[in-house]
């Protein structure tokens, strides 16, 4: 491909230098906490630092993984995120299908509604949500978190799926309907399989969105359904007297699953993110 701007001063060496600078900026903070999580505290606390390859150890990560409460938190995050993803995909595709394809009265109200809901800060909902979940006897349960996360992520999910569905030629479903496929068949057997990459992208987006959430977990959960993000923040508050390497290790455990997903499925994620905001 020809250079876009072919800036004369933007020689390859300068491009590499600038890109490297950006990469350093993007990677360094994570690299630092990763380093802290595999080194004994004394190595990086001393001035000057004495980081060494010999003392690299998974001791702190394994130490965290030995404690049932952290295993439980990781499990909570995994279950809640997975369930949120499934529920979002189900209701999201049901809603995206008519918005992309069918002739629905007042369609614009729904479309504009999905955009407006995104501007509502979580902090506005947290007090009523706490009271609502208390009255529904759902405090400190997976269900409460799944419900709240789904509510927050659905508008994004619907919008992404709608955009992906619209890229499928309508003739495909028309042909399927002609061959005797039912209405739900047109959605579940034609539209969704054909736009599978888009559906995967949306699924990852929902999973990561739920995994990284913090505020609702902080307020709605106390003991039984505490996600790893909340567990980490509690550890940080108490870290004046605890091993900092342990805090760093917990932080790593909280981001490693998502980082793995991003690097393995980066093509899907890039498409999903762009599609999710395309109007």
């Amino acid at each position, binding site marked *: 491909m020809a250079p876009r701007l072919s800036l004369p001063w933007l020689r390859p060496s300068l491009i590499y230098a600038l890109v490297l600078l950006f990469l350093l900026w993007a990677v360094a*903070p994570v690299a630092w906490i990763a380093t802290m999580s595999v080194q004994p505290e004394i190595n990086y606390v001393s001035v000057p630092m004495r980081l060494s390859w010999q003392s690299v150890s998974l001791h702190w990560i394994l130490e965290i993984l030995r404690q049932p409460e952290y295993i439980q938190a990781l499990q909570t995050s995994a279950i809640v995120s997975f369930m949120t993803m499934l529920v979002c995909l189900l209701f999201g595709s049901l*809603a995206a299908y008519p918005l992309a394809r*069918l002739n629905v009265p007042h369609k614009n109200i729904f479309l504009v509604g999905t955009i407006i809901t995104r501007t509502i800060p979580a902090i506005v909902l947290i007090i009523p949500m706490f009271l609502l979940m208390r009255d529904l006897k759902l405090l400190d349960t997976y269900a409460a978190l799944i419900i709240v996360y789904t509510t927050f992520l659905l508008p994004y999910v619907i919008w992404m799926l709608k955009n992906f569905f619209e890229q499928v030629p309508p003739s495909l479903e028309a042909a399927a309907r002609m061959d005797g496929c039912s209405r739900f068949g047109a959605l579940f057997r034609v539209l969704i399989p054909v736009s599978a990459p888009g559906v995967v992208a949306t699924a990852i987006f929902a999973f990561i969105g739920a995994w990284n959430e913090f505020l609702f977990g902080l307020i709605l959960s106390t003991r039984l359904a505490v996600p790893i993000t909340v567990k980490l923040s509690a550890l940080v508050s108490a870290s004046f007297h605890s091993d900092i390497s342990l805090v760093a290790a917990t932080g790593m455990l909280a981001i490693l699953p998502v980082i793995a997903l991003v690097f393995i499925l980066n093509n899907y994620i890039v498409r999903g993110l762009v599609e999710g*905001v395309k109007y």
Partner: protein
Amino acid sequence: MSTALPVPQPTERAGFWQRIHRMDESLFGLLLLAPTALIIAVFLLFPIAYAALMSVQQIELTISPDRTFVGVQNYVDLLGEEAVRASLARTLFFAATTVVSSIVLSVSLALLLNEPFRGRKLARVLVLLPWAVAPVVNGVMWRYLFQPNYGLVNAILLQLGVISRYQPWLDNPQFALTVAALATTWKQMPFLTLLTLATLQSIPDSLYRAAKMDGAGIWSRFVHVTLPHLRPSLIFIVLLQTIVSLQVFDLIFTLTRGGPAQSTVLLSYLVYINAFERLTLGKASAMAILLALLILFLSALSLLATLQRQPKSVNS
């Protein structure tokens, strides 16, 4: 035609599916939208209405569980309170600086990644990293980068001779908010870069070639080809980042907890303090509603700007 077909067994199940099959298209569409509409109504619209209701009540759980209707008193009190005004100004300042910094960085990076070079694919994947990091972990990370006793920033600056001894960056009211802005910029860069890159790639190569043939230099190609195509999405990115910046909460919770000396108490964090530390739910709700209105207002403003500018950029 259907009269010629054998009538299906009138079981309840068949009846249900049959009915759906024959349903009017618009009715069927509404049926599919119903579950989502119900979820949004119960868990989003109802809580908002409830928050609005609480915002006109006096609820102070530390004093009594009673609620008394006080009208707009909470709002009046808020606007008169020094801490709230300071937090509002701080939040707007924080939003303005993070919008500018993250957009300048993201657009530069997108322009770079749009040039062909070896290893571009790998670079595009690696810059995604900050996007994956949860805001809470982001706070922990930047806290450790700027730690007074063992931060990486201190170690590097000392090595370079910029500072003579370790500095307590996050204990400095003037600097703590800057660290929060840095962390927000860092976290937002991948997403905004991707969006910009997608727009840049949608500009057809033929336009650049034509401009070049007409003797347009780099600068005029950038101004007359790249910028007009970029402008609508730039305004949109400004809108997105403004919304994100005004909502920042998780980061502050683990980075500074609002300190030192209230210097990082952004509006959303002030709502949290009022609701869950001081238990003044009425006041906290009023503050939350004000924040939501502020975001809606700024969103509407930038949407209007988008709509007004779009025809121009298409013509030019």
